[in-house]
């Protein structure tokens, strides 16, 4: 029972982070490798406002989100979109920005964990004979709602349908009046806000340290590759596979080795089905 609750919680945390990356990389095709770094940088900004400057948690959270959103907007508008979709240059610039953010974090806060404002009252809830933190149960309740919200947004708004069109065929979408850079700018802002929501729901029990930034980018890469790039249901399924395999490995081998099972699963997927579980984009190419 404990494994099921912990696995669910882990899966929903991964899902929250993967949603934003799905918008940017899965649908928009932008190799935005600094995604996790921005989320963790924003969390650090919130932590500093709260812990060093002594602001009230709601103010710290709002200002933190606004600041990071602005930074991501500047980053995409003035750096990433200038590469004109050249994949290797996109990857290089976003990795360079990742290095900068991680280094600034190390210089200002060091590698030790930093206290993060808890949005939930610290209380243990008895469930099925064991005690769980309220924050973990909160993630299990809120994450599906956000996921449904993004799903609705993608299906029923002009912007969301534009993203589907871009992922299906970029040229035809542009002929139909979709402006890729403008649309992806909106999407990258939305993705950042979603990832920040994920961060402040989950960091109160994950703990805030630079390692989490690397963990986030690994998680989202796993989820998007495993599910198939551009597939929403694939991403959801992949988050659950990764979350539960992590929870099971952590309970069997200890929490330092919890990434091992997902890594093996990813390797098998790359070997036998590179397009992922529900990927259709490259199915034809796989015949060769």
């Amino acid at each position, binding site marked *: 029972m404990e494994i099921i609750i912990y696995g669910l919680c882990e899966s929903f945390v991964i899902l929250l982070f993967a949603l934003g990356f799905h918008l940017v*990389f899965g649908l928009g*095709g932008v*190799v935005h490798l600094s995604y996790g770094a921005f989320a963790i940088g924003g969390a650090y900004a919130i932590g500093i406002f709260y812990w060093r400057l002594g602001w009230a948690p709601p103010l710290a959270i709002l200002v933190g989100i606004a600041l990071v959103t602005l930074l991501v907007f500047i980053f995409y508008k003035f*750096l990433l979109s*200038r*590469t004109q979709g*050249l*994949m*290797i*240059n996109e*990857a*290089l*610039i976003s*990795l*360079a*920005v990742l*290095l*900068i953010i991680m*280094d*600034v974090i190390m*210089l200002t806060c060091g590698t030790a964990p930093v206290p993060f404002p808890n949005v939930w009252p610290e209380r243990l809830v008895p469930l099925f004979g064991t005690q769980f933190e309220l924050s973990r149960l909160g993630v299990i309740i809120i994450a599906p709602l956000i996921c449904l919200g993004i799903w609705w947004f993608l299906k029923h708004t002009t912007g969301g349908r534009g993203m589907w069109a871009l992922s299906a065929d970029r040229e035809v979408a542009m002929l139909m009046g979709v402006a890729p850079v403008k649309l992806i700018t909106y999407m990258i802002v939305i993705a950042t806000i979603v990832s920040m929501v994920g961060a402040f729901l989950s960091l109160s029990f994950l703990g805030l340290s630079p390692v989490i930034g690397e963990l986030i980018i*690994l998680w989202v*890469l796993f989820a998007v*590759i495993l599910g198939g*790039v551009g597939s929403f249901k694939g991403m959801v399924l992949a988050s659950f596979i990764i979350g539960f395999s992590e929870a099971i490995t952590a309970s069997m081998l200890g929490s*330092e*080795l919890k*990434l*091992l099972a997902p*890594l093996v699963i*990813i*390797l098998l997927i*790359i*070997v036998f089905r*590179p397009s992922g579980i529900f990927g259709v984009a*490259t199915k034809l*190419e*796989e015949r*060769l």
Partner: protein
Amino acid sequence: MAKRVDLIERSIYKRTQSFYAVSSWVEISYLLGPWIAGIAVAVLLPVFCQFNAYVLYVFTIAGIYALLAISWTLLALLRLYSLGHAMYIGISGYIIGILSVSVWNLPFYACAVLAIFGGLLLLVSFHAASLKVKGPYFLLATLLLPIMLAEATYLAPGILRAEEGISGIPVPSYGLVPPSIANYYLVTVFVILILIFARRFINSKEIGLIVRCIADNEYAVEASGLSVWRYKILIFAVSSAIGVIAGILYTLVRGYIGPSSLSLTVSLTPLLGSVIGTVSTNIAGAVIGTYLLVVLLEGLRIAAIYKIIVYAVIIVIVVLTRPRGLFHYMEQFYHFFRRVYE
């Protein structure tokens, strides 16, 4: 008043593109001059710096990264961009570390031979498994590999020594070249030169043409009755072999292998060197770019704790403002002269 700049070809450049170059020493030396000058500077560097161990160490490491950059450009020829070249160093280094320190005490040359075969086997079998992977998928798959190996070191802390890494790898006590940093430097230079000339040989052969075709259109190559699979494996094997040699030299020069050798910065350096050096898959450009980058990185030690930030800012500026690579501008400077209108 805005300036306008015209680039005009030197007439000697036009003439030396054909048989005229053979007919006169001036034109032959115009073509061969940069090569001879470059090779002379590279070979005579130990003399210029008066066998200063630190300078030679920096240039040896730069040469090893240049080897990795050559291996990277070979994969880039297939339009496969790898983000995990630290894996090549990691595999060969850990094989040597296991054989010579943590499990057995084999002499260095035996370890090196076993590392070449073992590393090739592992890397080629990985690449063979990931043959279908293309584009951003390849980028991500290779990004995960060094992380996977670093994670695996925790599985066998007795053999792979987890975080500390394996130190005290012995240097060869006998052999063709006595172990000194000047000799290691010359070995890297000669390997790079051999590869540069070997690449010119490959370019003019059928295989170069076929590989370019595979990058453009696999179906067309397959339809012509050629096995895409065979040529891809061949390129992977050559690229892995160069990477493994670089890994052996790296382990030998540093005497240490550990998770820090598998970090992202190690993977990024050869890639950045190639991108800074040249936009096409020109080996000489990649080598020059990598040497510049590593020496620059070493010079950034004066920036102390801000080193990584300065490095990353330089990456962003170069990628955005010189998308065609520095080698292209050097060629332009040599072959063209500029006329400026006011």
